[in-house]
């Protein structure tokens, strides 16, 4: 199991300091990141996914104590769940297949895998339709499918249920719970506190003043109204 150490990382956007923290993510299970709009959650997630590199500091990866180099193989083991607006202008099937192609999986195995995953997210009937024409709920499920298909150890999710109805959110949560069972490591950004309560093993709270707290979920939710969440809730 991979361990993340965001070591004194800083991130700037047009000279403005967006992010400045030192964080660890260890162990399988679901780690929720909470924080006000604009506090840098998406930015952090992109850094953890090795999509961007910090302007200061670095992301250190290790597996049971031994450092791992962030090579392609490592990166392919850490997946950021796509956002609906990032779906490919291709069929649902092709969208799921993409990640498998990247891993040079043979056509036949790809086919099997795609079908299996599409069933898991209940999109089999739409496998031929263009991904951009799906409904918001279907799109989000497709995004999950694309990540699951490649069986990564680490899955990063950025607000996977915002603007989904309770039913669709529930289905997505079911998929997430399934992934927890397969004891992968999940890092989830959400604004939905009750969702966080339902799913979180640990909670990382990011304040706007780049102050960060990290606690076991139970502890966080039983004590949140005290310490400085600067009026987040």
């Amino acid at each position: 199991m991979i361990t993340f150490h965001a070591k004194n990382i800083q991130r700037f956007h047009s000279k403005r300091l967006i992010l400045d923290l030192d964080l660890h993510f260890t162990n399988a299970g679901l780690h929720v990141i909470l924080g006000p709009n604009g506090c840098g959650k998406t930015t952090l997630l992109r850094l953890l996914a090795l999509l961007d590199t910090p302007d200061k500091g670095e992301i250190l990866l290790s597996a049971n104590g031994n450092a791992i180099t962030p090579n392609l193989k490592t990166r392919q083991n850490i997946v950021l769940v796509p956002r609906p607006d990032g779906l490919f202008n291709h069929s649902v099937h092709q969208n799921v297949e993409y990640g498998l192609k990247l891993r040079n999986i043979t056509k036949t195995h790809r086919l099997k895998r795609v079908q299996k995953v599409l069933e898991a997210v209940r999109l089999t009937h739409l496998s031929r339709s263009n991904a951009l024409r799906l409904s918001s709920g279907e799109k989000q499920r497709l995004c999950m499918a694309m990540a699951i298909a490649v069986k990564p150890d680490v899955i990063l999710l950025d607000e996977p249920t915002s603007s989904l109805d309770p039913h669709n959110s529930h289905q997505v949560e079911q998929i997430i719970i399934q992934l927890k069972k397969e004891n992968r490591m999940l890092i989830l950004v959400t604004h939905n506190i009750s969702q966080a309560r339902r799913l979180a093993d640990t909670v990382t709270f990011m304040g706007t003043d780049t102050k960060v707290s990290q606690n076991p979920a139970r502890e966080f939710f039983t004590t949140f109204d005290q310490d400085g969440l600067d009026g987040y809730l």
Partner: protein
Amino acid sequence: MLTNTLNKAFLLIVHLDADLLEIVFLSLRVTCVGILIATILGLGLTLLLEIRKIPGQGLIIPILNTLTGLPPVVLGLLLYVVLSRSGPLGFLGLLYTPTAMVIAQTILATPIVAALSHAAITATGQPVRDTARGLGATEFQALLAVFGDARYAIMAAVAAAFGRVMAEVGAVLMVGGNIAHHTRVMTTAIAMEADKGDFELAIALGIILLSLSFLVNAALYAFQRMGRK
């Protein structure tokens, strides 16, 4: 009189008049080759711009954009001075050859292809790129994904360039010389025949050129609509 001329013009078309066909095919050959090269260069450039932040990156795109407005006659003049026997590249003896016309059209088309594809990709590319990289694609693989995703926009860019250069007369006349059976294309022929008062041929060519560029633009429009909104 006019209707009469029109009829004659149509006859030329339906009877596939030899001169007419020769001119049309030369136009298409020159433009197709020019566009082919321009597409390779243009897309290559776009790819390059996306792969690594080159020094002066910030300048290249504005420059490309302004080059899309390069006046054909200025290019014609430039090429003339350069390709003329008394010019630096005179030894190549390219002036007044189809090659010279291809060069002109390539130079006119490349910035159009590059600028339009680049615009399309920067407009919609980032999320798609993130998707690919988030799933473990290399920078380059992600880029290919973006290009594949923007395929319609790119086709539209190519079509736009095609229409522009096929309909252009200034540069091809200056570097081609409108030599019969050699460098005479639709636009240069139309201008000349109109002067001579041979309106049958002029109008016949006009109709064909018009139809062709309408076809191209129809394709362009279709591509644009197939792309992501």
